[in-house]
């Protein structure tokens, strides 16, 4: 059933809140009172509740079933995290309170940093980036600042594999670099020959995802790091796939100079329909001095025997320390609400549980790969890491596209996998089950995927092209949306309906 827009239900007199009556005293607005109607509708509380509950039921969600979006790590979101984040001591604290009143909040940041550093084997972390792409920006800015500090003004070329997330090239450009793409080899990994050919003294660094977006571990990672370092560049590692190796491999041991960590991927803060994220970025010794403001300053040796912390907000507070922050990335000091959730998740798992996360994530992906490679087409030979990559060769001649196949999964009660990414594979289908799926659940998924593949091969093309039919809506006209953008409700648009 269609749910009307709030603008079609509520009026400007309706409201779902009660306030004491204003006293009507004189304003001090300097003559800037807003007098014209705004046009914002309100709804009573029961109507509001129904509107959003009904809308929510038009969404798929992890809590409803498998959400095998490759590269997105759609794992279970524990409600303990939500409970902890809502403790008044965390949720109801202002970022600019005096330091003496927020020592516990600083402690969360300190403990979180400790866990992240131990897990990555890195010496420093910047907590303030607000999402993965913001973390990339942080890391690449640190590289840029380092290069500038060293007078390396000629290094502006950044190597980025073809298979990289789109954020990588966009970020490099945002930091004033140019992007030079490296092709993948036949095995789905960096083409080492091509890489070597691109080295030179104008190379600022490389941006690499490992495990890469084909779900494969870059076997030559240490050689790559050495090559980049050898020619004077830095190694930015995209941390999106850290879930595959947490507790198993430390990026610091691979020669990484900077890596963001998606707290909403590896550490289970909820995706929330598109955010908020948090992208703390670990930095090597070489880059650490350039970490952005503000910086948590910790005095661990003081008479009271406990750490005393404060936030250095300005470069002027860093006198005498060899620190050269590249700037401030955003107001205040990071996604505290995500820090408490991620730390809760980490403490719940412990070092043993986090290793098990990587193990089970990789086990599950390989189990799917083993179960489906006979009927779908595996993109690259061998075992995978935490995600299994297929291409569309198995659909050849069926008239069924990757998109059709994905939409047919919806009719079977599943969210589709990631499609058409990475770009290096034709009609890519990237399946990431995560460690929080049960064997029984994977067995059912494999069975359904197998039957879909067989149906496609058996010529049930129309079924695929019509899919989804068991969803709140059928396929949506995305072209029309882009050609004639309607980005908001207007009374006129409404009348035209």
């Amino acid at each position: 059933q269609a749910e009307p827009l709030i603008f079609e239900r509520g009026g400007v007199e309706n409201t779902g809140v009660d306030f004491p009556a204003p006293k009507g005293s004189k304003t001090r607005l300097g003559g800037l009172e807003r007098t014209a109607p705004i046009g914002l509708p309100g709804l009573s509380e029961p109507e509001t509740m129904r509107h959003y509950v009904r809308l929510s039921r038009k969404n798929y969600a992890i809590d409803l079933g498998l959400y095998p979006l490759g590269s997105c790590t759609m794992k279970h979101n524990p409600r303990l995290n939500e409970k902890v984040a809502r403790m008044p001591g965390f949720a109801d604290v202002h970022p600019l309170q005096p330091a003496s009143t927020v020592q516990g909040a600083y402690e969360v940041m300190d403990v979180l940093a400790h866990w992240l550093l131990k897990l990555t084997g890195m010496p420093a972390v910047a907590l303030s980036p607000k999402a993965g792409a913001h973390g990339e920006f942080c890391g690449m800015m640190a590289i840029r600042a380092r290069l500038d500090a060293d007078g390396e003004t000629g290094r502006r070329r950044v190597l980025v594999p073809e298979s990289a997330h789109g954020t990588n090239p966009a970020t490099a450009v945002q930091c004033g670099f140019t992007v030079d793409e490296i092709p993948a080899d036949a095995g789905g990994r960096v083409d080492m020959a091509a890489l070597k050919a691109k080295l030179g003294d104008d190379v600022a660094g490389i941006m690499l995802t490992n495990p890469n977006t084909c779900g494969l571990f870059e076997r030559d990672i240490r050689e790559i790091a050495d090559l980049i370092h050898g020619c004077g560049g830095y190694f930015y590692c995209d941390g999106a796939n850290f879930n595959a190796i947490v507790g198993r491999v430390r990026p610091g041991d691979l020669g990484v100079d900077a890596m963001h960590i998606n707290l909403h991927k590896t550490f289970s803060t909820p995706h929330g329909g598109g955010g908020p994220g948090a992208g703390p970025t670990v930095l090597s010794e070489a880059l650490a001095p350039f970490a952005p403001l503000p910086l948590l300053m910790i005095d661990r040796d003081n008479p009271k025997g406990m750490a005393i912390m404060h936030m250095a907000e300005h470069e002027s507070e860093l006198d005498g320390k060899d620190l050269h922050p590249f700037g401030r990335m955003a107001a205040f000091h990071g996604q505290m609400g995500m820090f408490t959730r991620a730390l809760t998740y980490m403490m719940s798992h412990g070092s043993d549980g986090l290793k098990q996360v990587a193990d089970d994530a990789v086990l599950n992906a390989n189990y799917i790969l083993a179960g489906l490679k006979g009927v779908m087409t595996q993109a690259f030979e061998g075992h995978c890491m935490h995600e299994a990559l297929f291409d569309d060769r198995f659909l050849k001649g069926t008239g069924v596209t990757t998109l059709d196949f994905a939409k047919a999964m919806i009719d079977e009660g599943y969210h589709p996998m990631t499609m058409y990414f990475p770009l290096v594979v034709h009609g890519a289908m990237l399946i990431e089950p995560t460690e929080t799926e049960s064997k029984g659940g994977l067995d059912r998924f494999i069975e359904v995927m197998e039957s879909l593949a067989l149906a496609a091969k058996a010529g049930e093309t129309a079924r695929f092209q019509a899919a989804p039919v068991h969803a709140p809506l059928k396929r949506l006209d995305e072209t029309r949306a882009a050609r004639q953008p309607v980005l908001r409700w207007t009374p006129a648009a409404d009348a035209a309906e």
Partner: protein
Amino acid sequence: MRYLPHIDSDRKAMLEAIGVASIDDLFTDVPEAARLKGLVDLPLKQGELAVERAMSAMASKNISAGSVPFFVGAGAYRHHIPATVDHLIQRSEFLTAYTPYQPEISQGTLQTLFEFQTQVALLTGMDVANASMYDGSTACAEAVMMAARVTKRDKAVMAGTVHPHYVEASKTLAKYSDVEIAVTQPSVGGLDELIAAIDETTACVVVQTPDIFGQLHDLRAISEIAHAKGALVIAVFTETVSLGLVEAPGDMGADIAVGEGQSIGVGLNFGGPYVGLFACKNERNFIRQMPGRLAGETVDADGRRGYVLTLSTREQHIRREKATSNICTNAGLCSLAFTIHMTLLGEAGLRTLARLNHETACELADRLGSIEGVEVLNSSFFNEFTLRLPKPAAEVVDELARIGVLGGVPASRLYPGQFEDLLLVTATETNTESDMIVFEKALRGVL
């Protein structure tokens, strides 16, 4: 571990199906030397009870805003959030959904984004808005970059009274671009210096109202001049509630309005996550130069109305190095909280809320201004204002904290080495008369 469904017999059966003897065999691509032999040196797993206790111990070391008389603002504001909001954003279908790339099974998220965009456009007096940014400061930075793209000019002028964090975030984003940002001297006053800084090479002028000192600004004059010189006006706000009582930026001629939406539906959270609002006029190629996600209306195969993410050719996942921004994640759940709270308020509720904030702040200003040696500097304000104190504000704030009053933000915390006698004070609907009496008494005591 409670989040991991397998028991050992499952793992054994799965390894057999895969055809390997052990999990280690799946990690052989990792260089031998980099494979960790044992566990990382961190504590082992713990049950819920233990974790909750440990986190609670840290939480209890903070003074929460609700437990004391609280008057801190300067970019983040304490307002009452209806219980309905927090309940709804925790619905599994909202909390545990991803970015709505599959519109057929994401209409819940998409329709709320469409409603959010419309609300933000109405609030700001703009034509369109995007589906949210990380926060107000990054929205501001992106707006500057967008203005440069739109005008094909590379000089931005920012008022010194824009929240200093916003200025710094903008400078960071612009740092290695072609865009140069000039900032005027901050002061509690008007926009004359800013107006004077606009010339024919200016891409945009950035002005905040209410500004960091709480002062309100009429943007009509500056808009007229900026437009005459071909520059865009970016209006910044950090307190969305002000838009219920104060003239909207769009109605005063601004081209782009950016701000912090935290006041509506999102708690203080010690600084994040918040929700950046980004709205603009629908002129020239504005829409195609906007950063961030956009939900748009369309129809499905049966002609039924529905919503999709649209104009994604602006975005990094399609356009890669030519994208308008590298942004991927938005503030999804926070924008949901915003739109739910705003729906509960409606125009009537928002206007009352805003008026209560203003009246409370006026009352507080009168109380504090009556103290010997204390001066209220603002000629106008919404719910925050600036006091000149007879001693350093940072000391005063610390002394107040010691006696259990969170009395505001010393201006010197935002402007190091400057304004040491200025204190930024905020009042909202959550402040009771008794809070104000306690504050006044405490301030008299420490001065």
